[in-house]
């Protein structure tokens, strides 16, 4: 399991119901079931990974964030997790709404487009920046909705989500030292990780 998946697992109370959107190889839901006694389920788009997960006894369905969340009832889960995928969905705002309709909490991670290397490369070369994190060319990238940490916070404010926890994380998933200042995190954090809650609760 990646380090940021451990950080996510630590955000989740034991014994809760969890939906992991884009559950991949199922490591997170497997960990949540085995070590935290959670009722953890997954949705995954890649059928090979779905089959592998189900063959490991994990409850995973084939589906995707844009189309399949609408079919879940309100408050069905305590936590809904979306790892490193928000920038690749067709309608990120709608996906977040669905997550916080289905779950009491949403845990969202995404690569931060505000990182200083991206800013500098765009400024100096005048071309779409390419880094270790953002490594596909503009015409090939699945990341159609990149955002910065501050962009994301603005959306949360607009939508009325309460930010319970946030942290900047580097590419390996190690927690970055920028805990207090959002501006510094937005400049130096490669990945961002948020725990959101519906305001009306």
């Amino acid at each position: 399991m990646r380090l940021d998946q451990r950080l996510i697992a630590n955000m989740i109370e034991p014994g809760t119901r969890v939906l992991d959107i884009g559950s991949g190889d199922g490591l997170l839901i497997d960990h949540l079931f085995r070590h935290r006694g959670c009722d953890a389920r997954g949705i995954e788009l890649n059928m090979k990974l779905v089959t592998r997960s189900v063959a490991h006894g994990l409850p995973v369905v084939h589906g995707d964030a844009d189309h399949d969340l609408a079919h879940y009832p309100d408050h069905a889960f305590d936590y809904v997790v979306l790892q490193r995928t928000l920038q690749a969905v067709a309608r990120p705002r709608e996906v977040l709404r669905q997550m916080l309709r289905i779950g009491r909490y949403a845990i969202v991670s995404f690569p931060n487009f505000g990182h200083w290397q991206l800013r500098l490369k765009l400024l100096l070369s005048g071309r779409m920046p390419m880094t270790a994190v953002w490594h596909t060319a503009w015409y090939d990238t699945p990341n159609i909705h990149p955002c910065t940490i501050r962009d994301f916070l603005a959306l949360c404010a607009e939508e009325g989500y309460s930010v319970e926890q946030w942290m900047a994380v580097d590419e390996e998933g190690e927690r970055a030292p920028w805990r207090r200042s959002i501006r510094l995190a937005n400049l130096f954090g490669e990945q961002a990780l948020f725990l959101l809650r519906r305001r009306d609760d």
Partner: protein
Amino acid sequence: MSSTTPLEIGHHRHIHFQEGLELDCGVTLAPIDLAYCTYGTLSERGDNAILICHAFTGDQYVAESHPLTGKSGWWERMVGPGKPIDTDRFFVICSNVLGGCMGSTGPRSLRRNAEGVEEPWGTDFPPITIRDMVRAQYKLVHALGVQRLFAVVGGSMGGMQVLEWTVTYPHMMLAAMPIATAPYHSAQNIAFNEVGRQAIIADPDWRGGRYWQADVVPARGLAVARMMAHITYLSEEALTRKFGRRTRRGPVSGPGPEGPVSLFSDIFEVESYLRYQGSSFVRRFDANSYLSITRAMDWFDIAADHDGELTAAFARTPVRFCVVSFSSDWLFPTSAARALVRALNQAAANVSFVEIDTDKGHDAFLLDEPDFDRTVRGFLCGVAEHAGLV
């Protein structure tokens, strides 16, 4: 009241329920018999039983040679010691469905008619439903001492029975594997069934369903029904791969004197294959059973029994589901499985869903598909682990 007796054909057994069963149509069918096979051993706590529901023309011979055809069991590659459905670990039960013709009460069973004479039910056999089949299975499972089924597993019409189990006896089972199936029978599938039925009824040897009186069977009609249905179990890719446009020399007696010999002197291999499928089927299947069971499938619609709401049927279900579809299955396509999964998600059910990539069509669930085997094995292990039965 029930009694079990060993029986002559194969090693299947009979269970007799003197009190019978009240059917959905309102008729009480009494007594009823169910023919069944079991494999493995029931645990002391009665919690390791898996019920396998067979498909339309299947039977109870899941994992042993068929007494009439001599062929190996229809799911022998899936069920047995060390197999995905492991009989070293699980107690596996499979019964011939109510309305069937391999020993369970059906149109071929004898009854006393109005004049007190013993004769087969024929088309007087009361209309049965998938739920009637499931209620009969429940009686069997209960009589065998099973406290709660570990899982109910089945493909095609077997999958319909699995779904019916989950809504009729949700607390009698831990897990369900509906495979290559749908929550209702589609218009297209009803249409195919109707063509099959009409082929049987149009055969002069059907004789209004009383063919036993003349000691004949409507073999041509039943064979045509089987040939047509068999096409729906395959896929264009599978037919092309197996037969292409290859031809072979046709039977000498081919067309008869009225047609030019050249018209049928060479036949396509796919024709020859279908003819073989048709002729071997009539030796093991009863035409009136064909009519009864296809009708039961046509009426199957889980949502209809719950005010048209599929989600309501599964509300608060405690059952763990694993829905499986096959990419080239056009009889029970993935879209039907997906509709089922969405309803289950809406009901907040615990559901897994995989579509196995294959070109073998609907029949893929009976054939060699390693991903499917892994899915069955893994899902059952996962259920055991979650239930603390490891």
